[in-house]
């Protein structure tokens, strides 16, 4: 729990960063996307909280509803804190034809993650484990089709995956962090 002064100090730091980003990008094509990308990347859990969004809206003179519409439209933006490790499973055609759905199902089982009630969303997802250790997400295509099926573990691309190799990589991810 942060004390009030602690939070204020943190907010001040965050605001200074946002101001700097806005100064750098405002008025250029794609400014809003760029600002949101930078701010999200800067936050510890890689997500955009309402306070930051309100601050960005006020500073850039952008309607709140427009900001929310953008954040909720693009797959890159997170509205929830992300896990310590991110595992992204490619759902491109080549990966699909080489069994990426099985990999996804396997990890979901292993992590105890269930899809939301709306089954249609099941294959397009971002799920974070309760302990915030892992975020499992799908990516439309990494463009690494010749390495299919491809999984990205904390920004490292691993090709030609199978269930065993994936389990090994996930285990290594945890151990790497520990050591």
């Amino acid at each position, binding site marked *: 729990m942060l004390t009030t002064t602690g939070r204020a100090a943190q907010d001040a730091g965050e605001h200074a960063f946002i101001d700097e980003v806005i100064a750098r990008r405002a008025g250029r*094509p794609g400014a809003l996307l760029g600002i*949101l990308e930078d701010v999200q990347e800067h936050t510890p859990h890689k997500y955009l909280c309402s306070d930051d969004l309100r601050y960005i809206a006020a500073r850039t003179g952008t309607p709140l509803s427009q900001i929310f519409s953008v954040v909720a*439209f693009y797959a890159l933006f997170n509205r929830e804190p992300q896990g310590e490790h991110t595992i992204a499973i490619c*759902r491109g055609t*080549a990966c699909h*034809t080489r069994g990426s759905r099985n990999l996804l199902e396997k990890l979901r089982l292993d992590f105890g993650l269930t899809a939301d009630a709306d089954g*249609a*969303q099941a294959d397009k997802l971002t799920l974070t484990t309760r302990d915030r250790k892992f975020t499992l997400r799908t990516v439309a295509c990494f463009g690494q089709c*010749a390495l299919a099926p491809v999984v990205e573990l904390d920004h490292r691309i691993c090709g030609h995956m199978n269930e065993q190799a994936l389990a090994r990589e996930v285990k290594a991810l945890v151990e790497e962090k520990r050591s």
Partner: protein
Amino acid sequence: MSRIEDLSTFNDVRERGVAKLLPGVPRIAVGMGTCGRGNGAEGVYHALAERISYYGMDVQLVGTGCFGPCSEEPLVNVFIPGQPLVILRRVQASDADRILSAITTGHVPAELAWCKVEDWDHVTAHFKYGHGYPELPDWRDIPFFAGQKKIVLRNCGVINPDDIEEYIGVGGYQALYKVLIDGRPESVIEQIKAAKLRGRGGAGYLTGLKWDFMAKARDVEKYVICNADEGDPGAYMNRNEIESDPHALLEGIIIGGYVMKSTKGIIYVRSEYPLAVHRLERAIEQARQYGLLGVKILDRPFDFDIELVEGAGAFVCGEETALIASLEGQAGRPRPRPPFPAEQGLFGRPTNINNVETWYNVPPIIIKGPAWFTETGSARSAGTKVFSLVGKVRNTGLVEMPLGTPLKTFVYGIGGGGAPGRSIKAVQTGGPSGGCIPQEMFDTPVDYETLAQLGSIMGSGGMVVMDEDNCMVDVARYFIEFTHSESCGKCVPCRVGLDVSLKILDDFTTGKGTAAQLDQIVELGRMIRDTSLCGLGQSAPNPVLTTMRHFRHEFEDHMIAKRCRAGVCGSLALSPCENSCPLHMNIPRFLALLKQNRLEDAFESVVMDNPLPASTGRVCQHPCDNRCRRQTIDEAVNMREVHRFIADAIYQSDRFDALAARVVARKLPATGYRMAVAGAGPTGLTAAFYLALLGHQVTVYDGKPEAGGMLRYALPEYRLPKAVLAKEIEMIARLGVQFVFNTRIGFDLSLNDLGSSHDVVFISIGTWKESWVHLPGTELKGVMPALPLLEAVSRGEAPPLGRKVLIIGGGNAAVDAARTARRHGAEAAIVYRRERKDMPAIAEEVHAAEQEGVKIVFLAAPHRILGDGEGNVKALEVVRTRLGEYDRSGRRKPVSTGEVIRMDCDAVVLAVGETVDADFCRASGFSLTEGGTLVVDRFTLETSRPNFYAGGDVISGASNVSNAMGYGKKAARIIDERLMGAGRLAQVLPGFDYVPRAPDQLSSARRHETAVLPAAERAQSVEEVAIGLSAACALEEARRCLHCDARG
């Protein structure tokens, strides 16, 4: 600062670049594109760097982009002054020393060298490296590169993308220089128009027209945009182009900016491509330093700069109006056109948007001229296109081919065909906006118009090859799921129409689809296509509409038979192995029962699924091996040998009677129906087994003196001992099945008589006619068809083979005949017109034959048979063949080379395939197919005659034992259901106390193969060759099963 301001500074930079590319010292270039890195290229680079500095060598080490063949990564190219450039493939970090020590002696490591490049056409420059290395093939002779023409990829994998001087060294920025010096933008537009360059992003609109439109728009600000939001799953050419040669893209855009009178360029690139973003940032920085971006470019009165914008993960932003919305800080929802971007685009200003690859084509057109450009490609689609060839082909990667190249060249030529034992079914082009083109249409030239006619599109150039393991219903569903989740939601047809489509496809993949839905999804698809707001919605139904057009039968399989042949739709199959088995044996169950030491239960499970387990355990083609998921770890579980072990263990023990009684006890009460089964081969025996179990009175008729069909009369003793088969037939007889032998249906007993004395007749007479080869000399003594030969041997006769036998053919019968000849003391050679991998015979059998001394002559077709003066065979003349065009089976057609070889022999055996006895068919009055087989309903096996059903080879043409038995089982189920009004087969099948569960302890052992008699011993005897698995090995195999039947 090396700002280029005039020709002499330009030339200075160019010379510096050339010196880097053709240095006086060896140059090693490591392919460091994302695919190279994914395969360990960074490790290779660092190892080389470390060793070079350790040895203090004078070697230039650079990173390049990707050369194209992704499946051969990491790629390294080595240049030693005066020698050709050599491409090394699959290089590992541990190879560093080997490479460097070879270089010090002026060589390249032979085991890594793949091909050489003696000269390279950069289009904007021509490089001569040198001649040498006669032992190495030229790069153009490697199948993957054959026919490729690198215009877009002209520099990829050769130059260092992070060094502008290397780009200038190969003639880069020369086109820009020329355009700026000429100072006549109109003439550039005319050139682009004359080159008939079409947009490479998918729609194929003429670039020149687009530019003209934009150039004429008047405004204080205009934008030129490069669309690098490559989002088609399965397409990654833009990523590679940018990573490997970013300056060529910049040059194209700067030229575009100049001729369209814009000062602001924007590259909108996917954020999923971090390396491409990084390389572009660097390239833009360098271009500014060299005076190629910014104010007064090349010291001419032209200001232009380029801004990089990263997308945020939305496929629809590939749509130009959505991309503009995105740049304006809005959600990427497309806007109606008109107004078109060229009138009112970004921030309401005139805007031109072109795809990455379109821009790459600009500098070459300016340097070489439009006439040169239109030389390549087809009449309406000029130039080349880069495709990403991925999926189920051996060679994957990026290929640049002239437009109009037939699809089969991509799949079989460049791609090298499918994996062994898998046949290719379709190619998906154009990603979620495209469609699937079936294998029968692989002659299709790949250009904009032809693909559109087939309901697909070229799109951005993704080509995903699908084989028999891919379910087309699943593929259609996959793409709809993709567009469904990428739909922006603005317009109703796309938003809701795709949601309904997805639900319908869900129903099909789970076996709940209906005929009404089949029509509904087509109707919906047309509406979505015709009314949607943007290109995403308008093209989203293409994958469904094309699969419905070309693969409707797969939808029907899912709907009517509740079967997914590819084994992809999980809820329609128990496990991949069960799904692939024509008898649908519950393989995971018998493996588990064996593992639990419940041999008798395992036997009952096996025999109730498959009444001839000891026979199939020896001779089945084991399609289950191909589907086993254990292959993703090491090799398939040896399921065939385990069920053979289980069957043998019971048949050869005193428990046979007890277990036979257990089977007989499952028989249902008599129904009073009388069934006739014509043909006592595997199909007929299987049908008889199940029909008898279901309580019907069954009589089996056969023209031969004993039951078993091909199993009894065509398979040699050494593969399937007669005693084993006899035991299995005894089990069937115990169910009360009657046999009438020496009675040919249609000859000794008419079909009418059979029909009137039975309620149902099942025809399973097989294919007993050997196809004849039309050659001069087949009338000679000593020329014989394979089947009668094998049959005679099975009766214990010794055929007149002489000392030397030649067998024509490549199937199992050919191999059996050859091995039989060896056992009769003759030398045997098989003459086959194609290559080893094309042989239809079981690979293990071919291998065993060779061990026994059978020779196989590949690429040789029979020409004529020569006789001596007395009418006896004395030689066979064969003509050497080479492999030509790909035929419809995906194999290359053998073509005569004209070279004739004479092979002396005493006998010639013809084993080129069996067909249905045409005499029987003609007399029967049944409808026949063109191939001479009986016409039946695909789902019910009914013939054109009421109460007559047919199955096995007589409807499928010559096939194999398990397929034949599958028909017998299916026929019994359907016939019973028809007569009794309900499906009852499940009632006779036993249940077991067995819960499918993923194994706690998975065996890490590799696959166990059957023990075999030593080759030397077996060539002289008729003893069974394959001895089978030991109990310990069978148990270990059962422990290797991953249990795909377990449901999480």
